[in-house]
């Protein structure tokens, strides 16, 4: 039975780095697997969606529907995406027979330090709009396995822990 591994967190939390590590290990054991990244998905779609709450939710719905379609076809999916909306998490749980949810929970202070483009700093000052976690609300996933303050040193270890979860 195919599964969906949904790795989520705010921008800069390291979700994609960790997801790639899990995927590269998993692929050897389960060749029928794909890796789907939220940013890649946007560029594949090449459409008009922006970054306000409405468009972010629309994008999240598309990703969630595609993931459940793939798992229903017997393809395992490792998906790293922000998509921090309760209705999306509920949908995933309902439409994927095996669903694993991982939340990379990093303190905002740490995210600001990590964010080299100054995304969060600009948003806090009001110089940038539509930044999730600052001027856009988000829902922490309720049933997720939580990894707190995932840093570079812990990425390998955390990826291994997640791999053990889905193995």
């Amino acid at each position: 039975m195919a599964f969906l591994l949904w790795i989520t967190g705010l921008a800069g939390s390291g979700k994609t780095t960790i997801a790639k590590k899990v995927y590269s290990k998993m692929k050897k054991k389960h060749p029928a697997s794909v890796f789907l990244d939220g940013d890649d998905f946007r560029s594949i779609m090449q459409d008009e969606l922006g970054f306000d709450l409405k468009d972010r939710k629309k994008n999240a719905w598309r990703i969630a529907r595609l993931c459940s379609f793939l798992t229903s076809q017997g393809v395992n999916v490792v998906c790293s995406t922000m998509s921090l909306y309760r209705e999306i998490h509920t949908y995933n749980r309902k439409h994927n027979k095996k669903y694993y949810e991982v939340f990379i929970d990093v303190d905002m202070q740490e995210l600001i330090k990590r964010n080299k483009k100054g995304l969060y700093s600009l948003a806090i000052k009001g110089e940038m709009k539509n930044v999730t976690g600052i001027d856009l609300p988000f829902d922490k996933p309720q049933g997720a396995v939580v990894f707190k303050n995932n840093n570079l040193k812990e990425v390998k270890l955390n990826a291994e822990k997640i791999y053990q979860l889905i193995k």
Partner: protein
Amino acid sequence: MTKKPRKYLLISPREPSGATWLINCFLELGIKTYRRQDPDWMWQKQEDGSCVLNPEENILRKWLPILSAEKVFLFKDDIEVQWTHEWPVKGYSSLPVIYFIRDPRDSIYSRYKRESPKISFADFLDIPDAATLLHKIDNWVLFNLYWLQRKNLKVFRFEDYKNDANNTLNSILEYIKFVPDPDKFKKAIDGSTSDKARESENEYRKINNSDSQVINRAGAVSEWKKILDREDKKVIDKIEIKSEKLLTYFGYEVRGLVSVEKDIVIYPNVSILPFFSQIEFSPEDVFQNENKRSSTLSYLSVFTKTINKKWLNECGMLPFEIDILLNNLLVFFQLIQDKKKYDKILLLKSKHNQTEDKNSITLNLKRYVHSVVKKIIKKINP
């Protein structure tokens, strides 16, 4: 073996909420009531088991009439109450809470009148809280939202005490399972009135005439309805709009006002403010039913643009509070890597410290001269 006393917390927002009425009643009833974690700091035990107030806490005489009426206290050994305006920071006591609240339209206005009556009400509220860096209305709202996460908490209202002090005190004593002596109960009620508090404050000021801040003002219910100034009325409306849910929760009148400002009901995103990493609940716990947590903290940048040395002298804040505010702003601007504003605050801070040093030198010099003069007088008139 002596049994450990059962303990309670008395929590109220920093804004004048009438909790001193209750503290005075508790002390009248022989309930050891103290601020700060250590009861033995405020109440110094005598050899015979009685307690006297630590002279360092003499300022409390301004608030609590009983401290002027009595010198020696004999407390019950089975109950203690700690009172505080602190937020529920991590590791903070999980004791049952007596939560004492007052309509924010009155309590915030009362704080303004007490602290900074020389500036406008709106400007006063725009000064961020020194500790949390929140706008003062948000500060009140969030203080309540955070404390109300606690399960073992019961709310009591200032307005109920004003309406029926006997009944309110009875309900509180029932909650803390304390059976009072009927005579002492009557004495507690009679000795804790607003008039007694005002008398006590006047007595205190006769001895400490440099302290000009009036704390026992009107102490009335729904004072906000009598405010005539148009600008102040607008601010009252803003308080109501921002705290509407809480007003309803606490059973206060709401007028169903509609916001004219686009973002008036949006709470700031507190997860960025360093202070909130110390709180025992995450912002997500608090805001899970509030779809309003999404404002930026741009007001801090705006505020920083407006302040200067002259402002610091005129804002009505106490020097130590200004110090805390500037320190927290420094931490904040360092965190968001805003060097320009960081440098501005650093410069202001150094100027503020210089003034403080000068003040302290002048004060010490005055004290020295005063003591020398006293000695000379003593020698002349032994």
